[in-house]
């Protein structure tokens, strides 16, 4: 019954042909009947028509009924097919648990990977910024030498805002820390000084109260604050009457004027409150210090390139007008979205494409369309019987049919992609190993570090500040378990830095002589605490104070740049006096020691030139300047032979001995800082390794599937070969040769691809070349082994084929 239905279906004429043919046949038969009774042909035709009645009506009725019938039949057919296929599939899976397992694993891997990657992409890339028309938002940077995203000086910000025409608004942000003493224990909160335009540029209004206007952004009127939703909920209990309330921020009264909506909690630096920047006239003329973050909104219809061109022109003008401070300084513009998302876009999208292509794996593809072909296959197999082909002299079609070629192509693609991913992860794993062996330049074991912030109003006085810091060191040193303690303005591997331009004595006073170097203000025992070796000269002592010779310790990298072939000890170097005055009357300090290099900006980053000044000699012209440079925050570091994390609360208590209002924050062991400095590369390593291993698994499954099918298709041929005296080993070799062919092609493509794209990974690598031949060779070899393993079982099955049975089934 089923076969008949199917045949009728396959060979059936269309309903039109069916009805027309049937009625025509009937009329013709009647005509012949009447002719046989003696009528003329024409009389017979007329009589037949009369006898028939309304031909058109009959035709239409039949046509309609026939069409309905076909529709019904198709539906019934489809449901029957479906039932049958489900049953067939179920029985096949039940009979071949191995295959079932492989199919399920393949699907699970594909679905899982796609879901995971999509979730990551969605969270990181697709979630839009909570701003109005975010595609028009950009960041502006100063470009200086090889620094692409440099901070902007207030002077340049003011000039850019005044001269640029292609922006709807330009706003400056200066991140800062604030001590919030409102309510319970004091808390350190990240905040920002923003210029008046800031919220207008982002296009976000306040949820309560208002955002800043031009009036707030004036010196003397800046004691207002806008709270983030998070901070408002946390420290002000979500009080709806908070607007108008007075709060103390770092010891200074501020009036709350607004609360931002919850959607605004996603901020670049996690800042939770905003106060007006209110740059003074003096600050607005400052082209020397480059610390501002600038966000801007492009005018409608303006492209990034147009804005970039205009900004570059303005920067060139400013370079002429400010030859000292703006020498070699350009401008750079980047979409805000790109910065927010970072390089995750690139990191995530490449694998996402790979994940999606898994949907084309042979198991999925086969289930859909080829139902009828499959059922008809016995017949077609007879037609191209490999035995007959072979006996006729042909080399037979085992892998020749188009569908088999598709399968081979999928194996090739799987192998190529998996190898590509594995080479990437191999390189990153080698990077991780190399980084593990890198000497950071200090001994991170047993060191606790924590940040402490000095409120500007309480610590304006230089001497008082130094005393407080020395007090903190003394209090920390007597904490049980602590063997050494010190303060430093920037711990290695911490966030940010303070770069300064130094000019060694004897060089001409001009931009070309400047060596960019990182400043660290330290207390005397910093080097012992961190175990940074002093290579030449001496450490700082308690005698390095105000009123005596000003001294500095420089890093080896700085010594090499400043005096390449000479001993640096006793040489003088000018630094740290702001403004043109510092250039005209340089303030020299004597180098008393050369310290070992420290990898302060990440283990994979070569050490930068650094210089150390004792806190007691911190530049104090203008008053407090040095403390402002370091954002009035210092790190306290303490070494212990035991677990440094256990010290946290006692160190916090020691700091409170000095000033109960000073909260300790960002408390971490130096080993934690080391770990997080390699977190990005570890993220990549994990991602690529996972994808690579999944790719390897899928490729192995693919190879196994193709070869197993190949063997089952050529069982007869193999039987003949065996019957003709081939050794089982020969047969196994034949099968494995077949298996390796697409694998080798895939490996070739994978290696070629890896050579082409591994440059993209270059900035993530350390201690290994992007085209490292060792990694590529080892992984390719590994792949060949996996391929051999995957074809092992089918090859063994082939070698055990019983010649007689194989021939009988032919």
């Amino acid at each position: 019954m089923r076969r008949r239905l199917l045949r009728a279906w396959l060979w059936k004429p269309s309903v039109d042909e069916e009805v027309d043919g049937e009625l025509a046949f009937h009329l013709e038969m009647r005509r012949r009947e009447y002719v046989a009774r003696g009528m003329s042909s024409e009389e017979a035709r007329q009589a037949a028509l009369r006898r028939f009645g309304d031909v058109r009506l009959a035709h239409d009725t039949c046509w309609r009924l026939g069409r309905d019938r076909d529709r019904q039949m198709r539906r019934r057919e489809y449901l029957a097919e479906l039932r049958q296929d489900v049953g067939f599939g179920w029985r096949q899976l039940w009979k071949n648990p191995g295959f079932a397992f492989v199919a399920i694993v393949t699907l699970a891997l594909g679905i899982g990977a796609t879901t995971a990657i999509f979730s990551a992409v969605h969270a990181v890339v697709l979630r839009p910024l909570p701003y109005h028309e975010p595609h028009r938002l950009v960041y502006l940077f100063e470009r200086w030498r090889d620094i692409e995203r440099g901070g902007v000086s207030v002077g340049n910000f003011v000039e850019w805002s005044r001269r640029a025409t292609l922006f709807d608004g330009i706003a400056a942000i200066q991140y800062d820390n604030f001590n919030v003493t409102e309510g319970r224990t004091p808390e350190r909160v990240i905040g920002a000084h923003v210029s008046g335009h800031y919220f207008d540029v982002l296009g976000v209004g306040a949820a309560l109260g208002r955002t800043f206007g031009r009036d707030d952004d004036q010196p003397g009127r800046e004691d207002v604050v806008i709270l983030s939703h998070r901070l408002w909920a946390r420290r002000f209990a979500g009080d709806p009457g908070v607007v108008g309330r007075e709060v103390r921020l770092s010891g200074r009264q501020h009036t709350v004027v607004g609360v931002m909506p919850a959607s605004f909690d996603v901020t670049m630096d996690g800042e939770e409150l905003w106060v007006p920047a209110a740059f003074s006239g003096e600050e607005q003329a400052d082209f020397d210090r480059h610390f501002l973050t600038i966000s801007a909104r492009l005018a409608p219809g303006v492209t990034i390139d147009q804005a970039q061109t205009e900004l570059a022109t303005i920067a060139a003008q400013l370079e002429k007008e400010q030859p000292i401070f703006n020498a070699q300084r350009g401008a750079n513009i980047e979409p805000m979205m790109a910065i927010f998302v970072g390089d995750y876009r690139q990191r995530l999208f490449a694998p996402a494409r790979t994940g999606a292509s898994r949907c084309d794996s042979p198991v999925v593809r086969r289930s859909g369309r080829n139902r009828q072909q499959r059922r008809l296959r016995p017949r077609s197999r007879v037609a191209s019987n490999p035995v007959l082909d072979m006996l006729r002299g042909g080399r037979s079609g085992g892998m020749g049919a188009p569908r088999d070629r598709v399968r081979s192509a999928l194996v090739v693609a799987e192998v190529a992609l998996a190898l590509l991913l594995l080479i990437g992860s191999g390189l990153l794993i080698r990077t991780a190993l190399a980084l593990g062996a890198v000497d950071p330049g200090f001994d991170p074991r047993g060191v606790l570090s924590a940040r402490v912030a000095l409120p500007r109003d309480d610590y304006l006085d230089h001497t008082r500040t130094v005393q407080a810091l020395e007090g903190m060191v003394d209090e920390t040193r007597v904490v049980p378990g602590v063997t050494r303690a010190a303060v430093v303005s920037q711990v290695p591997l911490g966030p940010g830095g303070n770069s300064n331009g130094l000019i060694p004595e004897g060089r001409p006073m001009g931009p070309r002589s400047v060596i960019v170097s990182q400043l660290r203000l330290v207390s005397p025992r910093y080097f012992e605490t961190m175990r940074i070796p002093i290579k030449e000269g001496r450490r700082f002592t308690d005698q390095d104070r105000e009123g005596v010779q000003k001294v500095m310790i420089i890093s080896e990298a700085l010594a090499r740049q400043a005096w390449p072939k000479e001993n640096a000890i006793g040489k003088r170097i000018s630094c740290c006096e702001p403004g043109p005055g510092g250039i005209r009357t340089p303030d020299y300090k004597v180098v008393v020691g050369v310290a070992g290099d420290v990898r302060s900006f990440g283990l994979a980053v070569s050490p930068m030139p650094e210089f150390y000044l004792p806190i007691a000699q911190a530049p104090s012209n203008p008053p407090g300047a040095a403390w402002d440079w370091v954002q009035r925050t210092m790190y306290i570091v303490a070494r212990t032979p035991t677990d440094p994390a256990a010290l946290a609360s006692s160190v916090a208590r020691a700091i409170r001995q000095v000033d109960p209002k000073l909260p300790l924050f960002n408390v971490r062991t130096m080993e934690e800082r080391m770990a997080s400095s390699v977190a990005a590369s570890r993220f990549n390593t994990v991602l690529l390794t996972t994808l690579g291993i999944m790719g390897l698994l899928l490729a192995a499954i693919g190879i196994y599937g193709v070869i197993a099918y190949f063997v089952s298709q050529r069982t007869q041929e193999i039987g003949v070969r065996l019957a003709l005296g081939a050794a089982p080993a020969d047969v196994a070799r034949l099968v494995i040769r077949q298996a390796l062919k697409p694998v080798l092609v895939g490996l070739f493509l994978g290696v070629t691809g890896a050579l082409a794209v591994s440059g993209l990974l270059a900035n993530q690598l350390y201690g290994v070349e992007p085209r490292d031949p060792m990694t590529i060779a080892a992984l390719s070899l590994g792949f060949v082994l996996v391929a051999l393993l995957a074809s092992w079982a089918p090859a063994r099955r082939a070698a055990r084929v019983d010649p007689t049975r194989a021939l009988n089934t032919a």
Partner: protein
Amino acid sequence: MEKPVNALLHGTLDALILKTLTGGPRHGYAIARWIEEATGDALQIEDGSLYPSLYRMEQKAWVEAEWGESELGRRVKLYRITPAGRARLRHETRQWQTFTKVVSRVLLPA
């Protein structure tokens, strides 16, 4: 020869066709001829009404069609009765018996 009967009772044509097909698969013209011969041409069916009836019964799965070759060597649609068709025929026959018995009792009093 009796006088031709033109109007057929509802369902009767279906029953006649099904009865015809119990002798084996036939094409439409053969069905018409068989009915004419079996009734001695007394039952003049309009040929045109035969085919809608066949298509309707095909849809109800009382008959099914397959394509075969005719006497003239043309591809032709052959109808065959299905088990459902046989059941229908039995039902129609019983109905007919009841109907004639009842109507006869009224019209032809013994």
